[in-house]
């Protein structure tokens, strides 16, 4: 149940899988994304409402065949240059897009968690998106109203980051909870990285608790959400998001960065040590 992250990825994530690494600004499972890159997973269909830096890294390192998403940018900064390069120039390989709105993605996850074939919402009305994505119209059997239907998300693997688990593998996360509970419950298998293992989970208002029996693996990854944050542990590294822009603009600079901080490091501790080393060199 509680296993090293490298073992969890080796066992549960296979080439060609549909993988959702979720986190809505908060608790983004970056360490797990880095492990997918180290283990050279290929042909993944990556699902996420808000692909940001870690998806830029996965796409730029050639892990993804397809992206299912609703907003792909560097929040408050601008573009994801690796995502753009893949879509605009097919580098390092073409990337198929399945694009939704946030409301549609959220409904698709909720439907998956509820074991329903589709989610229903008032959305996708007008505009050019409906012709470009998987959406259909259903008629309400009671009122006759036409509503949008989106196919449920049922990822092979759901990956999230949480603050804590106990020794039995029960998980607790709090703060902005995004769509992580739905992601785990919609997925066939799931990996949860946590800041730490505690003897007992302390009840907290608004917390999301996932009992161990809905989770495939729990892995300790301290500061594993960086450059995102974990409420109660560390803040969002806003400077990193700003600094990512020039790193990701250039293919060679990006590859060198990934080599140094991800491929040449063994785990999340090594990743952070390499960032500190870079700061020391720069200073």
């Amino acid at each position, binding site marked *: 149940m509680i296993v090293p992250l490298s073992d969890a990825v080796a066992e549960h994530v296979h080439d060609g899988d549909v993988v959702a690494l979720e986190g809505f*600004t908060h608790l983004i499972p970056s360490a797990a994304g880095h492990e997918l890159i180290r283990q050279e997973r290929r042909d993944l269909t990556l699902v996420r409402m808000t692909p940001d830096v870690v998806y830029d890294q996965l796409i730029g390192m050639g892990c993804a065949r397809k992206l299912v998403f609703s907003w792909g940018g560097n929040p408050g900064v601008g573009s994801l240059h690796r995502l753009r390069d893949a879509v605009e120039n097919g580098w390092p390989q073409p990337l198929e897009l399945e*694009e939704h*709105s*946030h409301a549609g993605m*959220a409904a698709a996850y*909720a439907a998956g968690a509820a074991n329903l074939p589709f989610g229903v*919402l008032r959305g996708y009305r007008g505009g050019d998106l409906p012709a470009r994505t998987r959406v259909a119209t259903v008629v309400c059997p009671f009122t006759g109203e036409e509503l949008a239907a989106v196919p449920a998300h049922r990822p092979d693997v759901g990956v999230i980051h949480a603050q804590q688990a106990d020794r039995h593998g029960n998980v607790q996360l709090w703060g*902005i909870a995004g769509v992580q509970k739905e992601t785990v419950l919609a997925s066939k298998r799931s990996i949860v990285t946590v800041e730490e293992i505690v003897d007992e989970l302390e009840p907290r208002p608004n917390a999301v608790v996932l009992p161990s029996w809905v989770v495939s693996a729990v892995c300790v990854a301290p500061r594993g959400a960086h450059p995102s944050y974990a409420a109660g542990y560390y803040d969002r590294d806003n400077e990193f998001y700003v600094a990512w822009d020039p790193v990701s603009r250039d293919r060679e600079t990006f590859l060198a960065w990934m080599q140094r901080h991800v491929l040449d490091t063994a785990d999340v501790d090594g990743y952070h040590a390499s960032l500190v080393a870079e700061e020391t060199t720069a200073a």
Partner: protein
Amino acid sequence: MSVNGDRPYTADEMMAVEASRRLADDNVCFVGIGLPSLAANLARRTHAPGCTLVYESGTIGSKPVRLPLSIGDGELADTADAVVSVPEMFAYWLQGRRIDVGFLGAAQIDRHGNLNSTVIGSYDAPSVRLPGGGGAPEIALGVDDVFVMLRQSKRTFVGELDFTTSLGDNVRVVVTDLGILEPRDGELTLTAVHPGATADEARAATGWDLRVADDLAETEPPTEGELTALRALETKGRS
């Protein structure tokens, strides 16, 4: 940074101040990141302290001291009245019509207030792949009043959108760095210019034949209080 003659404020500051004035004290406002967030937080610090700010990350009633860089900064949750999941935000609160104003930005706008935040060029082979619609398609139709903030140029104010991401049905006002556009007879019409800007400048920065209202007004320049509050927000946000 826009040049603004010898006025003691920039064109972007004028835009943020004018947009903030559109928010009322009893509004519940869905806030996007960037300029909309700056304007909404300014409103809360000046004339509309009771205004409720809702961010799509699930924070309701956020009262940030620092301007957030993302829609999910910790401070938005720490200062919120309630934090809900993302499916709940879009289903119960937006679709449930509990939010009355939405502030949107975009890469392109047309004369009907339709917005593009998806691609420049064709969808299959875009010259620029933009981030995408995010919450915008449902926000645009799920609130009563949509306010748009966008710097005005022929690149942004276009005759035909490259892609229609969200519909302009509920767009009530577009605040630019040159002035104000409002729908009249089904078409965005220049109804005011900022001090120092002219209707000709606005026409030259619009990719369609821009209608100008007969009763074209001039917006009030930022007050000292507005500028002080705005700059305090920006300084804190960048520290």
